[in-house]
C-alpha cells in the first residue's frame, strides 16, 4: 500500500531545451507528489515530456526552474549523484543497450554488486543472483554461459528486472520497459514489476504511451501533454471519467478487443 510519506515532490518543475526562438519547454510547470510505495504512471504521446520528467527524477537532467524534492531534500543535495542512484534505479526500453554484448549475462548481473559500498562474499553474490533469476522466473542453468545476443527481448527485459532484484533500490523508474517486448511476454514483465513492488516495498514510476498498460499497474496515472500534466488520478477515474480531451483521445486510440476502434469494418 502506498504510505503517506512523500517520495518525490515537484513544485512548478520545468525543463527547457534550446535557446532564443528555439527554446522549447519539455516539461512545463509540473507540480505533483509521488508517495512512498506508490506506482505512478506517466502517460502521453511521444514528445510529451514524460521521458524528460523521468530523467529528472533519476537526476540525469537538471530542472531549469522549479523545485524537485526527494524524500524531503532537494534531489541534488548530495554532491555525488551515485548517492541518489543507490536508492533510485531505472529500466529502459532497450534491454540490449543496458548490457555489454561481450560479457556473459551472469557476470554482468554479478557486477551489479559493484554499486554496493560493501560487496558480499563470492558465494553470497552467486546465491543472490540465483534468487533474482528465480524471481523473474528464469532457471539459473538456462542462462549459464550465455551472452545478451543469445536471449530474446523478453528474456533480456527480465534480466534487467533481475538486476533490480539484486540492487534492491527503493525507487524504480521504468521507461517503456515493454515496448520492445512481445505481447505475450509483456504480461510477464508487468507481473514481475508488481512482484518487485510487493517484495521490495518499492516506489515505481512507470513511463508509457499505452494508457492500457498504465491502467493495469498503477495506483495513479499522470497524463502528460506538451510538457504539462493535464490530468492525474486513479486508473479507474482516469479511464472511466476522463476530464481532459487528451486523455479521452489516448483512450480512444487504443485498439481494444471489445470496443469499436477505427470505425471501419475490414472487408472480408
Amino acid at each position, binding site marked *: 500500500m502506498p504510505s503517506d510519506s512523500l517520495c518525490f515532490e515537484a513544485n512548478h518543475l520545468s525543463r527547457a531545451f534550446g535557446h532564443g526562438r528555439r527554446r522549447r519547454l519539455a516539461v512545463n510547470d509540473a507540480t505533483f507528489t509521488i508517495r512512498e510505495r506508490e506506482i505512478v504512471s506517466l502517460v502521453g504521446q511521444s514528445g510529451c515530456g514524460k521521458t524528460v520528467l523521468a530523467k529528472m527524477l533519476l537526476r540525469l537532467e537538471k530542472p531549469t526552474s522549479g523545485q524537485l524534492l526527494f524524500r524531503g531534500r532537494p534531489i541534488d543535495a548530495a554532491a555525488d549523484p551515485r548517492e541518489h542512484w543507490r536508492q533510485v534505479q531505472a529500466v529502459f526500453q532497450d534491454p540490449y543497450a543496458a548490457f555489454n554484448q561481450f560479457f556473459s549475462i551472469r557476470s554482468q548481473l554479478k557486477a551489479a554488486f559493484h554499486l554496493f559500498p560493501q560487496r558480499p562474499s563470492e558465494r553470497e553474490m552467486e546465491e543472490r543472483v540465483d534468487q533474482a533469476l528465480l524471481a523473474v522466473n528464469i532457471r539459473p542453468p538456462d542462462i549459464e554461459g550465455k551472452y545478451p545476443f543469445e536471449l530474446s527481448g523478453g528474456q533480456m527485459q527480465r534480466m534487467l528486472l533481475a538486476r533490480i532484484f539484486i540492487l534492491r533500490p527503493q525507487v524504480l523508474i521504468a521507461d517503456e520497459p515493454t515496448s520492445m517486448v*512481445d505481447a505475450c511476454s509483456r504480461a*510477464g514483465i*508487468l507481473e514481475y514489476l508488481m512482484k518487485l513492488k510487493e517484495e521490495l516495498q518499492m516506489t515505481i514510476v512507470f513511463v508509457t504511451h499505452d494508457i492500457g498498460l498504465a491502467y493495469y499497474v498503477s495506483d495513479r496515472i499522470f497524463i502528460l501533454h506538451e510538457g504539462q500534466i493535464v490530468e492525474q488520478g486513479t486508473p479507474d477515474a482516469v479511464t472511466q471519467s476522463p476530464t481532459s480531451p487528451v486523455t479521452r483521445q489516448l483512450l480512444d486510440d487504443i485498439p*481494444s478487443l471489445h470496443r469499436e476502434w477505427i470505425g471501419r469494418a*475490414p472487408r472480408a
Partner: protein
Amino acid sequence: MTPILEVDRLSLHYRTRFGGRIHAVDDVSFTLQKGEILGIAGESGCGKTTLVSGLMGLLIPPLHRTTGAVRIAGRDILGLTPDEARRTVLGREVSMIPQGALNSLNPTRKVKDLAADVIRSHDERADRSAIHDRLRERFTKIGLDADAVLDAYPVQLPAGTKQRVVIGISTLLNPKIVIADEPSSALDVSTQKAVIRLLFDLLDEGIVSSMIFITHELSLLRHVSSRIAVMYAGQIVELGTTEQVIFDGRQPYTRALMGSMLSAEPGQKARKPVAIEGAPPYLGQELHGCRFAPRCPVAKPDCAGRDQVLREVKNHWVRCHHAE
C-alpha cells in the same frame, strides 16, 4: 475466385555454417484474396520474418526453399532468378512496409531521391520531372506536405511522418500485395491509429489490392484483418476469420496469446493477463510431437509424441488434435 496469392505447403530453411539446417518456416499454406487483409500473429522467433522473405521471392543464401511454392497469379515466384524477382516481383507484385521506419530510409539521401531510386529501378526511362510529379501527387494523397517532405532528409522528419513516407515509397508502384511487418509497433497509440487509417485508405483507393499484416498485438488485428493466421515455431497453428480466432480460438496457443492481452476497458482490470512462460523450441533440430506442448497449459501426455497436422475444426483450421 482465384486467390491473388497462394502459399502452398511452403517450407524454408537456413543453412548453418556447419552444414545444419534451421527450418524457420515449415509447411505453411494459405491464400490471400483480392481486397483482403490477412493478419499473421505470433511471437518473436515464430518465423514471420522468414515467411516474408519467401513471400517476396527473395531467398538470399543461406535461406533456401525446402519444398512448396509461393504463387502470385499462378506463377511460382520462388523459381525466379534474383534479378527477375527484383524486376518483376519486388515493389510491383509484392511490396513491404518494414517494421522500423526509423532505420529503413537511407539517412544520407533525400526522400525524393530514395523514392526516385525505386521508380528508376523498375523503369529506367522514367524522366526526372515525370517522376517528381508522380511523387508529389502520391505523397499529397497519403496526407503529407509533399514539397517539404520530398525535399527533406529522413532525419529531419518526425517518426509518424517517416512511417508515412515509408508507406508512400512502399506503395509507389501500386503493388498488388503489401506485407506490413509490425508497421506501427514503434509508434505511440495515436500515430498508430493514423497509420492504420492510411493503410485502409490505400486499399480503398485501389492503390493496393490486398495486404498481409504481421503483428503480435491481437487487439490490433481484431480491427485490421479479415482473417488471422497464428504462427508458432515456423508453422501456422490456427487459421480462421478474425472473429473465430480472437473470440473462439481453438488452439491452446491462440488462447494463451489472448490470455496475455491486456485492455484498458472497465471491468477488465480484474482479469489478470497471463504471460506464456518458456520459449519457442529451437528449429535447428528434428521436432516431433506438438511444438507447443512444453509450454501448453492444457497439454496431455500424448501431445508430446504426436505430430500435429492442420485440420479443419468448425470452419477454421487448427493444428491441435485435442481441438474440437
